[in-house]
């Protein structure tokens, strides 16, 4: 068997695209990473450390948070940045380890589909959320809901 050789890191592969897409992806990972550190640490602190922590989480807790545009925007930013950051990370991993062209292509199609569905679903949930659904039991709702 012949030994495979590893090309020098700077040797050009194919003169295919002359775009800077990979540069922008690399830069996005760093910028979104710093933002996500703040967003995710804040999210974890407010939801797991303050008050009763995880035991306080229920529908009324989420409704109370999303009553404020501040947390709506916080969660929206976190959703979009984390999904795109994670998708680009997984794209890199697929490119590294899936060697067959068709397999690599389909893995990425599946990844991008799952990402698009999740981002759309999450965005819709944040903006169409009803904190006081009419048919729900009053004791499950946040205190600001009008009495039935």
């Amino acid at each position, binding site marked *: 068997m012949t030994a495979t050789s*590893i090309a020098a890191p700077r040797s050009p592969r194919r003169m295919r695209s002359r775009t800077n897409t990979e540069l922008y992806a690399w830069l996005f990972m760093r910028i979104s*990473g710093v933002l996500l*550190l703040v967003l995710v640490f804040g999210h974890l602190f407010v939801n797991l450390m303050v008050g009763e922590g995880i035991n306080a989480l229920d*529908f009324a807790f989420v409704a109370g948070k999303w009553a404020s545009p501040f947390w709506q925007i916080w969660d929206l930013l976190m959703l979009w940045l984390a999904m795109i950051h*994670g998708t680009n990370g997984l794209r890199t991993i697929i490119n590294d380890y899936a060697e067959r062209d068709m397999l690599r292509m389909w893995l990425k199609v599946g990844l991008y589909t799952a990402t698009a569905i999740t981002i759309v679903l*999450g965005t819709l949930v944040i903006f*169409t959320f009803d904190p006081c659904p009419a048919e729900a039991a009053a004791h499950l709702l946040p205190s600001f809901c009008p009495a039935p």
Partner: protein
Amino acid sequence: MPKAPAGTLYRGREGMWSWVAHRVTGVGIFFFLFVHVLDTALVRVSPEAYNEVIHTYQTPIVGLMEAGLVGAIIFHAFNGIRIILVDFWGKGPRYQRQMLVGVGVLWVVLMVPFLVRHLSHVFGG
């Protein structure tokens, strides 16, 4: 077809293993993110549906998994800062090992108070 053993780009030690850990934690966090968006989406179904699923997050076994998740997030976050410093700070590559020690120290400093508080919530009822 398996390839013949050849030269390798993997160099071991802190640089390679922190890179491996960054990938593993990143994939783990990303898969949790899918689940987490789906469970949060249950607020659009009904308060009962959301509360029922969130209650499973408050059980001991899932509580321990959350501790693992937070540990993965803290490592990934600070090791990401280390990667940024290696890329953009002139002396970053020279001090990458010391910065990994810094990541470990920060990890312990944040994990200890988190674990004390979170595990007392999960196991203290």
